[in-house]
């Protein structure tokens, strides 16, 4: 991530690092600008569509970093419920840690507490047993391969599965079948329609050595070049990263379970182990996304659980 390109982006990133503070992201003209929630911009009324992204709840993980992942997921859902204008929830995968039926049950029950229609895509931790059949049956009914699309308030949403049939030595993967489906799905859509892509593993290469990217993402993004507003929401890396390329805004969400190190950290990509007591909730979070009909870009605001 380039943080030195311009002052606005650098200042915005500083805001993002304030633990315990929500930051509203407005992406316009290729430059993301941070504004504290509560500002006039954040208070703007008349939203046509407002939804929340949660990610990486890892139900079943119970290690010193976080012995209570159901508890932190429940806290995240409370934050979702507090956003009374939100009408939809997106979960970008790794619902569970080990794909076990009881873990799927626990997650499902907690997330239903939000009372919102929820759209899921799988993480690699959700497909560990029986080729993911339990995940697909419960969370993407009608989409046996885990990819699908729908329209909401004029925005076209595309859920992609980039954790299926991972190749030895590779990163995330969409595969020829899904790319062909995507091409067909986008055909005939007006370039003015806002697009939201959501998938578990980042659709841009955050850090190849750790597999934090998707091998054939370029082929998917090439199909989106003609659209004027594209927002890509991912999880997997348990921290916020964002980038703007042309009309495409990329954003990764925090986990609701545990933080992971910054790319290249000598400790490796495993869960951060030395979180100071009482600080965990400031490293977990949910992402609020807002689209006003007629406006070019979607506004993205990250909120920590603390």
């Amino acid at each position: 991530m380039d943080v030195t390109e311009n002052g606005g982006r650098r200042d915005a990133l500083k805001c993002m690092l304030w633990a315990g503070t929500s930051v509203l992201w407005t992406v316009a003209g290729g430059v993301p600008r941070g504004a504290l929630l509560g500002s006039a911009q954040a208070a703007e009324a008349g939203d046509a569509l407002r939804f929340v992204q949660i990610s990486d709840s890892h139900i079943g993980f119970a290690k010193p970093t976080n012995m209570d992942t159901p508890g932190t997921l429940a806290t995240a859902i409370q934050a979702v419920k507090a956003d009374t204008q939100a009408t939809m929830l997106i979960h970008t995968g790794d619902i569970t840690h080990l794909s076990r039926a009881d873990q799927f049950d626990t997650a499902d029950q907690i997330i239903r507490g939000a009372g919102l229609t929820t759209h899921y895509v799988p993480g690699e931790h959700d497909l560990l047993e029986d080729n993911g059949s339990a995940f697909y049956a419960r969370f993407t009914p009608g989409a046996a391969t885990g990819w699908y699309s729908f329209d909401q308030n004029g925005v076209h949403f595309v859920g992609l599965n980039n954790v299926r049939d991972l190749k030895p030595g590779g990163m995330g993967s969409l595969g020829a079948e899904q790319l062909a489906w995507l091409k067909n799905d986008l055909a005939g859509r007006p370039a003015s329609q806002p697009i939201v892509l959501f998938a578990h593993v980042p659709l841009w290469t955050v850090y190849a050595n750790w597999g934090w990217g998707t091998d054939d993402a370029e082929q998917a993004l090439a199909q989106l070049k003609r659209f004027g507003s594209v927002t890509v929401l991912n999880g997997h890396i348990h921290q916020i990263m964002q980038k703007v390329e042309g009309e495409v805004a990329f954003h990764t969400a925090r986990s609701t379970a545990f933080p992971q190190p910054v790319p290249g950290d000598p400790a490796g990509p495993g869960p951060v182990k030395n979180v100071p007591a009482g600080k965990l909730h400031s490293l977990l979070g949910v992402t609020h996304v807002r689209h006003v009909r007629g406006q070019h870009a979607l506004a993205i605001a990250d909120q920590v659980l603390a």
Partner: protein
Amino acid sequence: MTGRTARAVLAAALLLPHHLPAAPAASQAAVTIDNFSFKDPVITVTAGTTITWTNRDDIPHTVTADDGPPPSYRSHPLDTGDQYSKLYDRPGTYRYYCSIHPKMRGTVIVR
């Protein structure tokens, strides 16, 4: 197991009369999984060796044959402390990876 021990086992096996069924080799080797990597990434054993992988990470991993698709074997997801064992009874070079984190790769060379 050291290479010397492995060779001794192999030598003992070769001394058996041909009409007797081959004695089950008791050779064992171990590979640990630490920090998203197989240690050691390349391990050389004698035919008849059982390799046991132990996951010492906070994150689950698998031991999956890199000979697919589909792979000829894949361990169940190994949670922290879980083990998976496999007997290698024929000489050859066997590559494997973690199907959850495919950047993790390893090789078993059987002599």
